[in-house]
């Protein structure tokens, strides 16, 4: 049994220690936000916040998060209480198929926590690990800059 904090609440998963965090979150914890894209930390679709840092979850063993705090896109906000970044992504219509968005939102949260007023180059750099094949990049950059302007709660 591996215990950790998931989206602000205590969680305990009865899985082998070497099961990747992504598989544990999707299969055992019933989440759909973190997505499988490549399985080798090369596309960004599976990013989650681990103690506030944006990290890929597809290879990270579940045992590595014992006692730590994991946040997925589901933990950022909801339609009735959206995170400012989620509001900004909707305002900018920043997405097409949307498969990459959960991971991108996670890295954007980490960026704005570390640097509340990033410039465009800093946004691009923070999102560099993430692939978007639909070509929504410019909208996504605008959305992150909008969220920075409109304020992210500390």
């Amino acid at each position, binding site marked *: 049994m591996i215990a950790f904090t998931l989206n602000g609440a205590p969680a305990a998963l009865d899985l082998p220690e070497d099961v990747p965090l992504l*598989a544990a979150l999707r299969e055992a914890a*019933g989440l759909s936000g973190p997505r499988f894209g*490549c399985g080798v930390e090369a*596309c960004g*679709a599976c990013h989650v916040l681990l103690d506030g840092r944006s990290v890929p979850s597809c290879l990270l063993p579940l045992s590595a998060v014992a006692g730590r705090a994991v946040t997925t896109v589901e933990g950022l906000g909801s339609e009735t209480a959206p995170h400012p970044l989620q509001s900004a992504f909707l305002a900018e219509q920043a*997405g097409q198929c949307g498969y*990459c968005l959960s991971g991108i939102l996670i890295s954007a949260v980490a960026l704005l926590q570390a640097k509340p007023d990033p410039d465009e180059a800093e946004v691009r750099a923070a999102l560099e690990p993430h692939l978007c094949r639909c070509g929504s990049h410019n909208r996504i950059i605008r959305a992150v800059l909008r969220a920075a302007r409109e304020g992210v709660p500390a």
Partner: protein
Amino acid sequence: MSATLPASLAANPRLSQWLGFTPDGAVVIRPGKVEIGQGILTALTQIAADELDVAIPRIRIETVATPTSPDEGVTSGSLSVQNSGVALRHVCAEARAIFLGVAAQGSGVPIEALRVEDGDFVGPQGAVGSYWTLAERGLLDGEATPGARAKPPAARVTAGTSTARLDLPDKVFGRPRFLHDMHPAGLLHARVLRLPSRGATLREVAPGPLPEGATLVRDGSFLAVLAEAEHVADKALARLARLAQWDEHDTLPDEGAMPAWLRQAAGESSVVAEHDRGEAPATRRIKRDFFRPLVAHASVGPSCAMACWTGEAVEVWSHTQGPYNLRLDLAKALRIPVESVVVRHVEGAGCYGHNGADDVALDAALAARGVPGRTVRVLWSRADELGWSPFSSAMLVEVEAGLDDAGNIAEFRLDVTSNGHSSRPGRGALPTLLAASTLDPPFAVPLAINMPVKGGGGAQRNAVPIYRIGKLNIGMRTITDMPIRTSAMRGLGAPVNVWAIEAAMDELAGLAGEDPLAFRLRHLDDARAAAVLQRAADMAGWAQRGTAEGTGMGLAVARYKNLGAWCAVVAEVAAEAEVRATRIWIAADLGEVVNPDGAVNQLEGSAIHATSQALKEAVRFDRRRVTSDSWDSYPILRFSEVPKVDVALIDRPEMPPLGAGEPAFGPTVAAIANAIHAALGVRPRAMPFTAANLAAAMET
């Protein structure tokens, strides 16, 4: 007054197949096109809201399921609004008239005195009924009839506005929406062990245990493992890969000599277009070759499907672009009647054409066959997606063109050589699905085809220049040997043909001593083409463009498929260690635009996709296997490399709507190539436009 029905409606004329109402106040629309990230569900909802006079939140969309949904073939070719939207507009307008007629008759209020307010039929004395009160009267059981009842463009309220995407909140809040997110009770996970190389056959599976709880599925050379837990299925697959013994042999051509292979491979030649106006002969000529390697769809989400058997019938959940077409090929490959197959569409990641979506559906049906009553899900790996999806064919385009003494285009010859650009399922005697050729007994792999020009063409798409030309000869050679499976990808042959034509136009302009913009405008009789070209040039400041060393601007224009939307692009590049696209300006004429922001999103997205293909992408292979099966070996454009994109739409609400997903692709590739010449003085001859390929072009 139109005397015929829209094509999708003529093929599926029963009104209730498209539209229904519920007594509790909901509208249900059932389009035959599917959401692939292009925003079609939102655009169709807008159209229905306008013609029915209901608020958008009342409208629910039922995604395609066989055999009840309208069969609109494949969601492809930038035809979603063009086909489904026009049909649905007709259906909704006719339904509104039918319901109002019944309400008028029932209430005695003349139909002219009735209006619809969010679904209520309101007369001078108040409401006399609604869609909801008449919902169960069977008023839509009849067939659609010809005749225009749709509102005039000026009366549209939501169509023509940038309604927010209805599917985006699910995606931004991480709610389950994709097929990948479905967890039906008793779900089993399967993984398929793809062949180690093209044409390999299974010799044996050596004895050895699979992880506890995992079971093996085998049919010929098709191998899969099943497990209750996904991570166990992953482990079982790795184990199976070590146990499987194969016979392998060389089947692929030399990647480094693909232009020569295209020239020498057996093929069928045809004339695409020709004319001779008997004008002055060419006195100055250019002759150039253009090559593009195989390229991949490279979806970020690997293909996924679920299947569940009941006796000899199977139900399949798929993110296919063509549920009915897939159904036909599943029946062939599974050797069961088509009536025994149900295909339900569920969204997947963007596909950009015929990727592995259909193939994985057969994988799931095969994996599930031995466990009736259990739903089995197959998820492809990244290596499967990049290594085994169909690819867009390698292409070679040869152009010979010349000017007469007056500087007019006297001659233009273009010959395109390519494999076919469609292996889509459901169109031939044999299934095109990947695993079909590995079964016992195996199915032969059908050759990819190039559709005729009137259907939009394949390799020859956009091979005919839109310019005034004295003597024109356009030919195509379709290769009849297909060592690597090819199929439809965004634009089909258009990106390479538009690049070749527009690069030649720049060279001809140079021969004429004229600016590329002025030279094009002088040879354009198509006013809508000229308008987008001028607009894009104005946006980019073409006339005032600078001449800083290592940077440059190029422009290009095309009418997609020669019968779709008009689109012009100006690109700006900076030559660093590699060429980088820094700015893209797009002007497009899409006719009526149902959702302007959605159209802009599609245009800018396709331009970024095209930039990625132009600068970075090539499928790599040795003599046995595709080796570019990871993001390291098949790199695509990243955030740091994405150009800024500006888009202008020339809105023509009175004109038929034309799709937005593909028209910018070819012009973007071409504009980047022409910008590279402006920056470096070298004419790209081979995609991708890497430093190595540009250096090779300089030497020839």
